[in-house]
């Protein structure tokens, strides 16, 4: 019996449609009722580098890339050389015959090389060299025992959107498909097993954020492009007219965040997004919004640093950064979604928190989450109730009087907020320390009152955030604690550890700040062993938890090589650590 969970990977030179063909593969299988997770690996180049796209497919829910690679499609020699060691012992590599030199014994175990003349087929069919990716796609489907019709449907869907040669691409895919059917007799160890299609979607984390923002009534997105945050900008720009929002590509990140803050101050829901470098530029304004108590949502889609770092790779090194960025102390609201659905949901929560507590709110993601595409179901797309916070009713204002914007006699730290344009709401919104009227004031008593007032907001919010849920087995031998995109790898690792007879569970921290302290204490208190899993060198969440609870995990599983966690790495580490 062939395995129905498999991992397909295609690689080739940058500029040869690796991502586009990968997306077609993923979508074709999604529409056959299978769960898919697609991971895009590429350098910070448009041409001249090496790209790879990897799709994990399963009849059961799959949460991240599961290696080894079952089928590796090598459009060029570099793909084979770079990735041949990732191939499963019973897997295979399709190579571009004539362009790639490879033999079975260069692959692990009994894996086979199938040499298919991709370029030759393209030439015969009258296509261009760049179209060999589509031939490889057809060949892959044949080897995996898939039907051609669903593939054809996706090619038509994709090229119709692009307005390009649909018929030629279908013909190329069919030629690749037929070539394998005619020439490969060997039964492959992995196969496509279609299921009833429950109408799932495939969506990246950034797309989840974009749609969450739209649904939350975000009326402005101001940004400057930076990988891996840029596709939030692209998606919102594409929808701006449909949903009547303004998407402004600003001259730099400083302009972007100040534009968003200006919009938040004026009363609309506004957001900006960037990666760590851009967030560094935004940090002064981040603090300004904290001081002036202005609602705004900021996305930091992390990539490895410091500095330019590894622009198209992943990491979780910015947790401490967003918790401390900008001078002095102000309440930090930091949310860390762990999958696309959480991106969608927490973005909506972020806007409510921003307005409820009159504060900047950070959504912290990373490249793995932002740019990987995963199956999504049961997305709640209907209108939802919004929390617009303590905006005063213009009718209750007294025209001709200044409004005391920053009153401190408020138990939850939230002072009523008039919006520009309301008669009687005039005030100074002030980045200088200020008195209750908003005027600059530097007296020690008022300074302390205002600081304490601002910090009461986070104390209040801490009472209302939903505590995280412990997922998995009761009385577990091991409890994973983590945040962000590591969720997927942990869920997959848990499957394997269970299959090996271990009891495991998982606490995902979505609210980094305010931190659900009591729940963490409870979980640590009951756990037999705790392992914190993070994509950084120092164990930043572990440190943050220790700072708030005094608790230390038994193990820290850390990774900072620019790659996401792969489930087998976690499994191996756990087996070794917990012998």
């Amino acid at each position, binding site marked *: 019996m062939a395995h129905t969970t498999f991992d397909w990977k295609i690689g080739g030179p940058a500029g040869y449609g690796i991502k586009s063909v990968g997306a077609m593969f993923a979508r074709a299988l999604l529409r056959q009722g299978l769960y898919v997770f697609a991971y895009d690996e590429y350098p910070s180049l448009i041409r001249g580098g090496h790209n790879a796209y990897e799709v994990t497919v399963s009849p059961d829910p799959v949460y991240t890339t599961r290696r080894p690679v079952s089928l590796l499609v090598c459009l060029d020699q570099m793909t084979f050389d770079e990735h041949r060691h990732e191939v499963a012992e019973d897997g295979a590599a399709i190579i571009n015959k004539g362009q790639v030199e490879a033999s079975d014994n260069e692959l692990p175990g009994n894996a086979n090389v199938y040499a298919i003349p991709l370029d030759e087929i393209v030439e015969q069919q009258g296509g261009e060299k760049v179209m060999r990716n589509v031939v490889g796609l057809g060949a892959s489907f044949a080897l995996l025992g898939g039907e051609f019709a669903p593939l054809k449907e996706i090619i038509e869907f994709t090229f119709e959107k692009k307005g390009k040669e649909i018929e030629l691409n279908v013909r190329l895919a069919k030629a690749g498909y037929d070539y394998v059917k005619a020439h490969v007799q060997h039964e492959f160890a992995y196969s496509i097993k279609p299921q009833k299609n429950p109408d799932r979607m495939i969506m990246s984390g950034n797309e989840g954020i974009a749609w969450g923002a739209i649904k939350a009534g975000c009326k402005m997105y101001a940004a400057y492009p930076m990988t891996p945050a840029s596709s939030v900008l692209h998606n919102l720009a594409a929808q701006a007219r449909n949903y009547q929002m303004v998407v402004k590509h600003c001259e730099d990140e400083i302009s972007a965040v100040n534009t968003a803050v200006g919009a938040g101050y004026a009363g609309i829901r506004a957001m900006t997004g960037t990666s760590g470098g851009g967030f560094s530029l935004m940090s002064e304004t981040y603090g300004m919004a904290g001081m002036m108590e202005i609602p705004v949502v900021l996305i930091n889609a992390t990539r490895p640093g410091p500095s330019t770092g590894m622009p198209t790779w992943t990491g979780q090194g910015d947790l401490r950064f967003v918790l401390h960025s900008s001078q002095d102390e102000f309440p930090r609201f930091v949310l860390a979604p762990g999958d696309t659905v959480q991106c969608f949901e927490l973005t909506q929560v972020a806007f409510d928190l921003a307005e409820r507590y009159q504060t900047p709110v950070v959504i912290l993601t990373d490249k793995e989450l932002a740019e990987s595409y995963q199956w999504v179901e049961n997305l709640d797309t209907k*209108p939802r109730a919004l929390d617009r916070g303590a905006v005063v009713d213009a009718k209750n204002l007294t025209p001709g009087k200044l409004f005391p914007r920053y009153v401190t006699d408020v138990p939850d730290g939230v002072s009523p907020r008039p919006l520009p344009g309301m008669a009687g709401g*005039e005030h100074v919104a002030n980045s200088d320390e200020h008195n209750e009227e908003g005027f600059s004031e530097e007296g020690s008593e008022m300074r302390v009152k205002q600081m304490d007032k601002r910090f009461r907001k986070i104390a209040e919010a801490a009472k209302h955030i939903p505590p995280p849920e412990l997922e998995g087995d009761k009385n577990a031998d091991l409890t994973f604690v983590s945040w962000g995109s590591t969720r997927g790898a942990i869920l997959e690792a848990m499957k394997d550890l269970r299959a090996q007879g271990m009891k495991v569970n998982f606490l995902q921290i979505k609210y980094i700040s305010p931190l659900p302290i009591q729940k963490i204490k409870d979980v640590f208190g009951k756990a037999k062993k705790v392992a914190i899993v993070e994509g950084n060198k120092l164990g930043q969440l572990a440190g943050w938890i220790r700072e708030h609870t005094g608790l230390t995990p038994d193990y820290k599983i850390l990774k900072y090589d620019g790659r996401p966690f792969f489930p087998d790495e976690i499994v191996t580490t756990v087996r070794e650590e917990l012998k």
Partner: protein
Amino acid sequence: MADEQKLTQRSYTTEYTPTWCPGCGNFGIMPATKGAYAELGLKPHEVAMIFGIGCSSNGSNFYSVYSFHGIHGRSLPVASGVKLANSDLTVIADSGDGDAYGEGISHFVHTARTNIDITYLVHDNHLYSLTTGQTSPTSGEGMKTKSMPFGNIDHPFNPIAVAILNGATFVAQGFSSDIPHLKELIKQAIQHKGFSFINILQLCPTFNKVNEFPWYKERVIKLEDEQHDASDYQAAVNQAIRTDGKIPLGVYYQIEKPSYGDRIQQLETPLIKHDITQVDISKSLAAYR
């Protein structure tokens, strides 16, 4: 405070005592600004003034409008955000020369390019005065300050030319010692649809001992006295770069051109008035299936 019947300068005045030095040019610019608001019939709540950081920006405490005292160099992008959110507001960005032409120079150039319908008032005293008088981008060559004690060796920045060349559709220069003239310029700037900019030459009696009143008196001329045609781009540029030592006051350049808001259909109704309680995205998600 605001009087429904008759708006005067007092309608825009807070109880906060101004902290500027005696003789500061800001004491001329503020009444010109408030006078312009009053004569245009702008109610205090209809005005959002976005300040940066500097002596002039401390004026944020002295205006009883929606006053926003932000951070150094960033008044323009905040002002753009406010205007985009609520285009019913009259939005004024108010900065000094250090703020506008030093820290915030990129925003000056790029905001001019957008032609967004806001007004930018820059108090230009050729110095960083709040930090006790260091060289600014508009300091003259050779000017000695604490930060350049042997004299400024940098070429002075030309804000007027930069604004004209980069898409501003109203460009003027005023003088803090000629309040009635400045007030009229501010009125015209606010009424202009698009990005309007006034460089306001300003005395700093505490730190600027070079560009004092007699120095200006010898040099300033009025463009209206020279029959300058402000709709003539080339003539405007020529005035901005003139080399006879004269300093023209008045409107250098003004043209009609669609503003940023005019070019975005989403802004036909101010964003603040959009109903966001019923957003249904369900019909848009077919592309993800």
